[in-house]
C-alpha cells in the first residue's frame, strides 16, 4: 500500500513536471490561434527559446538574463511568423514549418560555435538556474500521513515557472473572458469583419496575439533548459511543441481544458516512463511507444469527430482581406 502510494506520488509529480512546458506552449498557441493565426511553429519557438535562455543564463550567470533572452528569441520568431501570415498574408502552415526548421538548425549551429560542447550550452549552476521553491512548512508537514507527502512532494518543491504555468491557466481564461483585450482577441479569430467594422485594427490585434504567443513559448523554452535541465541540449523539445498543439486541439482551444489535456498527456508520458519494462497483470507489457503515441492518437480520434467535435476558430488560417 505504502509503496503503491509512493509510486503514485512519483508519477503525479512527474506528470506535473512534464506537463508544464505543454501548458505554457499550448496556452501560447491558444493566444495565437484564438486570434485566427494558426501556429504549428510552437516547437521551434520553444526550442529556440530554450537555447537562447540556456546560453544567456550561462554567459551572464543570471537566471533573469536567461529568461529575458529566451523570451526575446521566441518573440523574434513569433514576429517573423506574424509578418509572414499577417502582413504578407502568406500561408500560416508553411511559415510555421519554416520556423521549426530554422530553430532546429540554428540552435545547434550557434550552440556549437559559441560553446563547443556538441550542441549543448554550459551546465547551469547556482544563480543561473531556476531552483525549486519550498513552500512554507513543507518539511514540518512531511510526516503527517497521506496529506503530508502530498503537500511536500506534490504541491511544494516545484520551480517558480511551474507555479507560473498553472497560474497562467486561470489568468488566460480571465484575460480571454473578462478583459477588453480578450474580447477583441476572440472576436478577431471568429469574425475579423466584425472587429474591423467596430473600428478596431485587425492587424494590430493579431500582432498582439502573436506577441503573447511568443512570450509564453519563450517561458516554456526557459523552463526546459533552465529549470528541469541544467542547460540546453540539442533538440531538447523533442516534439513537445506538437504535443502542445495536440493538447490545444484536444482542449478545443479553451484554457482550462488545455490544462487538463496537458496534464493528461503529461500523465501518459510519466506513466510510460513508469511502466517501461514492467509487466502488468492481464495486459502484459505495455510498449512505451504505445504510451508515447497515445496523445497523438487521441487527438486524431477527436479530430475525426468521434469524441465531440473540435471546431477551430472560424477565421483561423485565413489572412484578413477587407471585402468590397
Amino acid at each position: 500500500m505504502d509503496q503503491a502510494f509512493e509510486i503514485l506520488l512519483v508519477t503525479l509529480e512527474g506528470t506535473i513536471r512534464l506537463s508544464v512546458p505543454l501548458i505554457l506552449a499550448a496556452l501560447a498557441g491558444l493566444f495565437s490561434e484564438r486570434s485566427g493565426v494558426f501556429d504549428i511553429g510552437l516547437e521551434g519557438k520553444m526550442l529556440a527559446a530554450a537555447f537562447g535562455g540556456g546560453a544567456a543564463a550561462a554567459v551572464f550567470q543570471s537566471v533573469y538574463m536567461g529568461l529575458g533572452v529566451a523570451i526575446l528569441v521566441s518573440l523574434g520568431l513569433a514576429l517573423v511568423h506574424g509578418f509572414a501570415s499577417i502582413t504578407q498574408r502568406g500561408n500560416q502552415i508553411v511559415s510555421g514549418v519554416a520556423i521549426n526548421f530554422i530553430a532546429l538548425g540554428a540552435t545547434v549551429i550557434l550552440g556549437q560555435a559559441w560553446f563547443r560542447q556538441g550542441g549543448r550550452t554550459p551546465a547551469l549552476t547556482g544563480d543561473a538556474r531556476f531552483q525549486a521553491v519550498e513552500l512554507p512548512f513543507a518539511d514540518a508537514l512531511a510526516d503527517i500521513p497521506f496529506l503530508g507527502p502530498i503537500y511536500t512532494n506534490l504541491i511544494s518543491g516545484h520551480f517558480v515557472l511551474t507555479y507560473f504555468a498553472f497560474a497562467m491557466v486561470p489568468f488566460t481564461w480571465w484575460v480571454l473572458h473578462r478583459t477588453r483585450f480578450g474580447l477583441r482577441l476572440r472576436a478577431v479569430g471568429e469574425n475579423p469583419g466584425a472587429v474591423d467594422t467596430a473600428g478596431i485594427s485587425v492587424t494590430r490585434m493579431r500582432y498582439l496575439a502573436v506577441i503573447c504567443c511568443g512570450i509564453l513559448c519563450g517561458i516554456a523554452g526557459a523552463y526546459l533548459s533552465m529549470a528541469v535541465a541544467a542547460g540546453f541540449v540539442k533538440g531538447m523539445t523533442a516534439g513537445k511543441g506538437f504535443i502542445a498543439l495536440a493538447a490545444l486541439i484536444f482542449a478545443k482551444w479553451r484554457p482550462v481544458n488545455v490544462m487538463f489535456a496537458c496534464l493528461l498527456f503529461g500523465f501518459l508520458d510519466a506513466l510510460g516512463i513508469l511502466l517501461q519494462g514492467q509487466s502488468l497483470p492481464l495486459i502484459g507489457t505495455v510498449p512505451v511507444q504505445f504510451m508515447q503515441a497515445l496523445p497523438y492518437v487521441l487527438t486524431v480520434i477527436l479530430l475525426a469527430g468521434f469524441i465531440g467535435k473540435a471546431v477551430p476558430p472560424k477565421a483561423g488560417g485565413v489572412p484578413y482581406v477587407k471585402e468590397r
Partner: protein
Amino acid sequence: MSAPFGKLPGWVEYGLIPLINLVFAFLVAGLVVLLVGESPLRAASLLIQGAFGYGEGIGFTLYYATNFIFTGLAVAVAFHCGLFNIGGEGQAYIGGLGVALACLAFDGIFPWYLTFVVAIAGSAFFGAAWAFIPGYLQAKRGSHIVITTIMFNFIASSVMVFMLVDVLKPIGSMAPQTRTFTEGGELPKLDWLMSIFGLDIGGAPFNVSFLLALVCCVLVWLLIWRTKFGYEMRTMGHSPTAARYAGMKEARIIIITMIISGALAGMMALNPIMGDQQRMQLDFVTGAGFVGIAVALMGRSHPAGIIPAAILFGVLYQGGAEISFEMPEISRDMITIIQGLVILFAGALEHMFRPAITAFFSSMQGVGRQTRAAGAGE
C-alpha cells in the same frame, strides 16, 4: 497555395522569382555563417567542392537527391489538389516496413530485381496506407489534414520504434534494426552510369532507386498533366467550386491523391534501406520527408523543378558534410536552417517580392505580349 494572377512571363514566374527567393534564403544563411565566425564564401566554395568536386561526392549528392525527389513529388502531388501533406516523414518511415518485410522474406530466394519489385509495391502500399487515413478523415470527416498528418508522423515514429525494438530485431541483437539483408535485398550501385562520365563514385551508395525516382518524376508529370484524374486533381486544387460544377467527386479525389502522395513518400524508403544500409534502422528517414516540403515549394510542384531542387538539397547534404569536415563549427544542421529559410522565402513569403517584380516588368514592357506561360502547363 493560390497566387494572384500577375501577368508575368513564364521565365520570371518559374525561374526568376524562385531564384530571388533562394538568393534571399542563402543570404540569410550566409549571415548565420558569419555569425559563427566563418567566411560564407569559403563555405560556399567548400560546399560546391564537396558536392561536385569528385566522383564520390557526386555519388553522395545524387544519393541524397534521390530521397528528396521521392518526398518532393509526394508533397507536390498533394499540393496540386490543394492539400498540404506534412506527413511525408511518417509515410516514408512506415514505407520502410514494406521494404524491410519484402527483403526479409525474399532476399534469400529472389535476385535483387525481383525483391526490388516486391519492395517497391510494399513501400508504396505501406506509405499509401499511412496517408490514406488522414486523406479519408479529411474527405469524409473534415479533419484538418495538416494536423492529422503531423500527428501521424509522431504515431509512425512510435510504431516504427516498437516494430524495430520488439518485432523485427533479430533475437540476441541489441541494436534496434533488422538483420542485414543478403544479396537479394541489395540494390546495385550506379557506378557504371557514372563511369560513362569518367567518374568513380567510390563508396557512395548511389543506386538504382535513383532511376526509379526519375521514372516517378515522369509518371507524376503524366499523372498531373496527362491523365483525367490529374485534370480533376488540378481543378480541385485551383477551385473546389469549379470541381463541384464539373461534377467531380471531391472526397474520392482527395483520398486517391493522398494515397498517391503517400505511396511516393513510402518509396523513398527503398533508397536508404535497400540501396545503402541493407537493413532497416531507426530514423532512417532523417528528415527527408520534411525536405520534401522545401523541394516541392522551390520546384513549384513540377517534376522539372523538383529534380533540380532535390539535387540542390543533395548538394547541401553532401557538401554540408564536407564543410563540417573543414569547418567543425558548421555542422550538417546548417542544412536544416537553409531548408527552413527556403520554405520561408519560397513558401510563406512568396508574395513579398512579387509586387516589385510585377511593377518592374509591367514598366519594362508596354503590354505583356509574353503572357504565354512557357512550360507552365506542361
